[in-house]
């Protein structure tokens, strides 16, 4: 089984809330690290994330960020550049996190990511008014 390190990086407390909400449904998840960009500068956040990576020594690193083009996205890209076993998904939502943790180690990595993105989109449902 592969070891994953998963980071949720967002504005405000959204990352922590997404972790709590996901774990409320699926139970505690291993090596899941939520970070907010609220007060720390990006180099400080990068150091914390690198420390997690050193501790976990993951085969794969996955970043979920809230907004492409935002500072969390920029940060994830900076770390991605140094860690080729990492991937970034922007636009994080509950359906994609649930899909991700439910299917971890069920699919080869590329297929997992493809599925997670698909399930994240499928989770956006509209009831016409």
């Amino acid at each position, binding site marked *: 089984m592969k070891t994953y390190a998963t980071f949720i990086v967002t504005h405000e407390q959204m990352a922590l809330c997404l972790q709590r909400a996901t774990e409320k449904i699926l139970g505690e998840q291993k090596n899941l690290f939520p970070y907010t960009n609220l007060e720390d*500068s990006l180099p400080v956040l990068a150091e914390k994330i690198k420390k997690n990576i050193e501790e976990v020594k993951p085969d794969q690193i996955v970043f979920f960020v809230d907004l492409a083009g935002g500072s969390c996205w920029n940060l994830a890209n900076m770390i991605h*550049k140094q860690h080729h076993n990492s991937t970034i998904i922007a636009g994080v939502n509950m359906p994609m996190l649930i899909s991700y943790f439910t299917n971890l180690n069920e699919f080869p990595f590329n297929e997992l990511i493809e599925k997670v993105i698909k399930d994240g989109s499928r989770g956006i449902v509209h009831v016409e008014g």
Partner: protein
Amino acid sequence: MDVQLFRIDDRLIHGQVVLGWAKPLKSERIILCDDEVSESEWEKELYCTCVPDHLLALVCNVDETTSLLTKITHPDDRTIVLVKEPRVVMDIVNKGYVPGTINLGGLHYSDHRKKYLSYIYLKDEEVNQLHWLLDKGIRIYCQDVPTSKAVDVLHLINKRN
């Protein structure tokens, strides 16, 4: 001539700038002024990729930025200038362009920085740099997004020290 927004923000181009400020200000151009970023093709691309099409994003070093800024003659110029720390503004001033007003929009926590506001942490050295800029007659205010309350930097510095 002044630009619309001359902002110190260690996150450079990000949501607060592109969405929070550029939209209400109806900006046309963002100049990211940073010697290091301007040397890195990869970083330039990273910062500019997500900028909406209606905004022109330029990454310039201090010399290029100063030269662009001194050429602005229109009183209603729609440019946002972004630098990551007060030191860069000093460099621009020393090269010959003095902004009238500076927005201190985000300097986040790192070693040796003390907290002033949730989005403003400053090293003592940076406080001195802000004083240097104030002595040049530049007005400096803190404000992360247009809808939040602007705080005069002098008030902030004096209150703490």
